[in-house]
């Protein structure tokens, strides 16, 4: 398989507003792509469409993931196939503990693969191991999902979920926003530890911070719903010094 993700001429809207106006993007296994752009460019819409948010409508174009029609799959089917989104604004789920939440997620994936569910003891061992990776204290396992978490704790919880689900394609949507340097390093270390030659990552961001720690292979500039420039890391410096107006 030479391409993990192939996006062709993708148009999408929310309500009457067209936000994506013809996106083309290809990602090979093992690659890290950065999608950079100013606020309102359509970065979060792209992640929403990739993961199947019901309120976004694709009006034109196609997305193939591992050669399959991604747009024909439900959000949960996409997750089972190895797609993961680290939310820009992680959702609070009162009354559901992180352990119950992630156990349901991990077992649903195993079930979809025709494998037996994990034993409770094995799951807790796995949780403990992955929580150490993102430096989450063990007591968080019993906390309700994201309820009362600080910004940094929410983002670490996203990376914990990523580590537990072991995705093939991870999308990090503004994972660096609102993080202090220490939290950013923890998140970046987690992401780097999970990298492998088969796995790819899309880092969506409007500034360079996370990209200092997680080095992208390809950088795209997204503006007004289109990718207006694709290049290497030199684009990060160009954006840093001259902003997005140059494109």
């Amino acid at each position, binding site marked *: 398989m030479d391409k993990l993700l192939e996006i062709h001429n993708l148009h999408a809207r929310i309500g009457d507003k067209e936000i994506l106006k013809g996106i083309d993007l290809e990602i090979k296994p093992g690659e890290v792509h950065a999608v950079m752009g100013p606020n309102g460019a359509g970065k979060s819409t792209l992640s929403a469409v990739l993961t199947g948010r019901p309120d976004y409508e694709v009006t034109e174009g196609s997305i193939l993931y591992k050669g399959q029609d991604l747009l024909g799959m439900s959000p949960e089917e996409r997750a089972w196939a190895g797609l993961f989104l680290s939310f820009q604004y992680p*959702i609070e789920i009162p009354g559901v503990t992180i352990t119950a939440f992630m156990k349901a997620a991990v077992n649903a994936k195993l079930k979809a693969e025709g494998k037996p569910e994990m034993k409770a003891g094995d799951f807790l061992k796995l949780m403990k191991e992955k929580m150490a990776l993102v430096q989450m204290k063990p007591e968080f396992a019993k906390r309700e999902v994201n309820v009362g978490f600080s910004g940094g704790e929410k983002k670490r919880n996203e990376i914990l979920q990523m580590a537990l689900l072991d995705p093939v394609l991870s999308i990090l949507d503004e994972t660096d926003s609102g993080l202090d340097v220490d939290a950013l390093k923890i998140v970046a270390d987690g992401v780097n530890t999970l990298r492998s030659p088969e796995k790819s990552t899309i880092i969506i961001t409007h500034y360079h911070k996370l990209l200092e720690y997680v080095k992208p292979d390809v950088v795209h500039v997204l503006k007004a719903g289109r990718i207006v420039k694709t290049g290497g890391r030199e684009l990060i410096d160009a954006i840093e010094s001259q902003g997005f107006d140059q494109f």
Partner: protein
Amino acid sequence: MGHGKYIAPPQGQYQVQAGEVLNLQYVVLPGESRDLEISVDLVGPGAEAHIKALYLCKASEKVRFRIVMHHKAPGCKSTQLINGIAGGQADVRFDGTIVVAPDAQQTEAYQENHNIVLTEEAKVVTKPQLEIYADDVKCSHGATVGQLNADELFYMRSRGIPEAEARTLQMLSFLSPVIPAGREEEIEAAVRSL
């Protein structure tokens, strides 16, 4: 509440004397139409009453809660929490009144009624009321009628939890404060049937 099979306390009138604590818990399962009229008088200083109820509807059930919590003596405490889920063409109504008599100083009274509506046809009307005739009291009441949270649902699905399972998890977490101990499995089965 005793052992084994849960028995709903009878509806009707209760008088709670000084220092006594009354606990009432009601469960209305899918298929049951109920008209629960409950009146509690806190007549002795320091008396307490706590009411918890849950209802689940999925057809054309008619469920009524008519609760009057009357604080007649000082230093009494009452809590009410009624959570339910209305599907199908259910018709649910909650009328809850807290009355605090002039002599009932240092009263603490709380009442909450939260409802989730699953279908367009289901109807929920909630009417919490306070009648306070004393000045040194802590009282609050709140009522909500809403739907399952779409953001939570998508978050769970994006992690691979199937939609039906995600909805069940949401409903159980919503009901958890009112599920009686020992009835978790029965309630879970009823929720899955909605």
